[in-house]
């Protein structure tokens, strides 16, 4: 319904200085508390990949990024089998938790929107 990235109020919050001042600490705490970093994940590893757009975006990662992603997924499923988080030094540091996939997904969505636009364009030549 909201596309592969889900619904987000972040742009609205960021646009307001007061709101972001209030909400940022809560968001930071929430991201940490949700626990994915303890399993060595980055936030973009959690994006649901079972759709065409994200599949196409995944193909646009560099070979290094693809390798690292597969490694994180594998390490996390292993930790899940052991029923405990990774060792603390293997947790994802906040600085490393970057949106490496989001720009590619947005690129794919933009292309689809453009195709939609050209498919339904009305043309007036002067």
């Amino acid at each position, binding site marked *: 319904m909201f596309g592969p990235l889900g619904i987000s109020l972040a742009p609205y919050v960021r646009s307001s200085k007061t709101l972001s001042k209030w909400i940022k600490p809560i968001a930071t705490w929430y991201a940490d508390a949700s626990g994915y970093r303890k399993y060595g994940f980055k936030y973009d590893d959690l994006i649901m990949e079972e759709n065409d757009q994200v599949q196409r975006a995944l*193909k*646009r990662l*560099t070979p290094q990024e693809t390798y690292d992603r597969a490694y994180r997924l594998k390490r996390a499923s292993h930790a899940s089998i052991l029923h405990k988080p990774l060792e603390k030094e293997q947790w994802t540091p906040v600085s490393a938790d970057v949106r490496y996939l989001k720009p*590619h997904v947005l*690129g794919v969505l933009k*292309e689809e929107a*453009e*195709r939609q636009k*050209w498919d339904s*364009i009305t*043309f007036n030549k002067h």
Partner: protein
Amino acid sequence: MLSSRALTIQRFATTTARGFATAVADAAAGGVKVAAVDFGQPTSAVTVLVKAGSRFQNKEGLANVLKNFAFKSTAKRSAIGTVREAELYGGLLSASLTREHLALTAEFLRGDEAFFVDVLSSFITSARFTRHELGEYVQPLVSSDTLTASSNPATRALEAAHALAFRSGLGSSLFAPEHSHIGVDEIKTFAEGAFAKGNIAVVGTNIEASTLTKLVDASFASVAATNASTAPASKYFGGETRIESHEGPQTVFIGFGTTDSSTSAELATLTAHLSTTPLVKWAKGLSPLAQAVPEGTAVQSVYLPYSDASLFGVVVSSKTTEGAKEAGKAVVETLKKAAKGLTEQELKSVVAKAKFGAASEVESREGLVNVLGSKIFTGADVSVESTLSAFDKVTASSFSQAVSTLISAKPTFVVVGDSSRLPYADELGL
């Protein structure tokens, strides 16, 4: 009635008067050369020639990848935007590659030149060369080019012949190797080097020279004004190679190269002499070679002039290896006979044939761009008359002199097909 006829005649007079424009290296464009010709036809075409052919590449297949990147996303519009917008204008966009040039062509209705020149120039000035487009759109095209070329024995023979004849430079292939690893960074570097003002020429047909110059001045203004690329001068080597192939007819290429450009009219005449194309339908043709070639065998003479060298040759393709051998022998015999000289009568008819071929070639758009492309960068006279007048200077002695010098060099000999049964060069008398 009378006035309308008068008008027609007057219009005809003006179109013939501006039959051919000369190249202008415009000061404002800082070296982007422009040539335009108006035949008064309803569709126009603009070709941007870039000195980015395969002889300038420093890695196999780079030029081919750059060609297939044409009309992908630029800072101005995306790949799909380019295609759809061109579709709305009813235009055609195409890119082609030779050993010397990359040619980007747009064909469109008169009056839409502003948009199409912008499409062509935006690739030159602001192509984005994204990594995902290379993987998703460009790489499949590159592989399909390679596959198509490798399934055609004549193309394979010509590629191998170039590699033998010139080794590096002109010898490098137009196609990418089957497993090439070319990254976007290499493409970007190659494009940056090639897309300089001195390397670009714009040829327009059915468009006014002043309109085109104005558009080119405006849209190519941001191109770097660095000097033209130079490739090391070509040298002719020659040699023999045999390629095993199970597809298509048995093919033999017998050729000779030269770096002497002063005999181009003589060599074009020799090509016409060896051409077996009949002048009327269902006839065998009057050329001495056509009579000697066995049934089921085709012989085609090719003359490929480049800026500092040229390759002349004959492609024999036959159903059987015996047919290829017999035809090959006939070709060598005819060549040796031609080196001894033709009779005055023979020469006259062959020169006329060659002259007609050259004249009718420039009437088609592709032929015109081919002919202009070789001349416009050197600043030579780009009129058709200079091409044709060279044929008037061909004499019996200059012809036999040129042919005997040509065939005294080491031959370039390629066979593609059943290599264990196809003839060797010495078996044909080379």
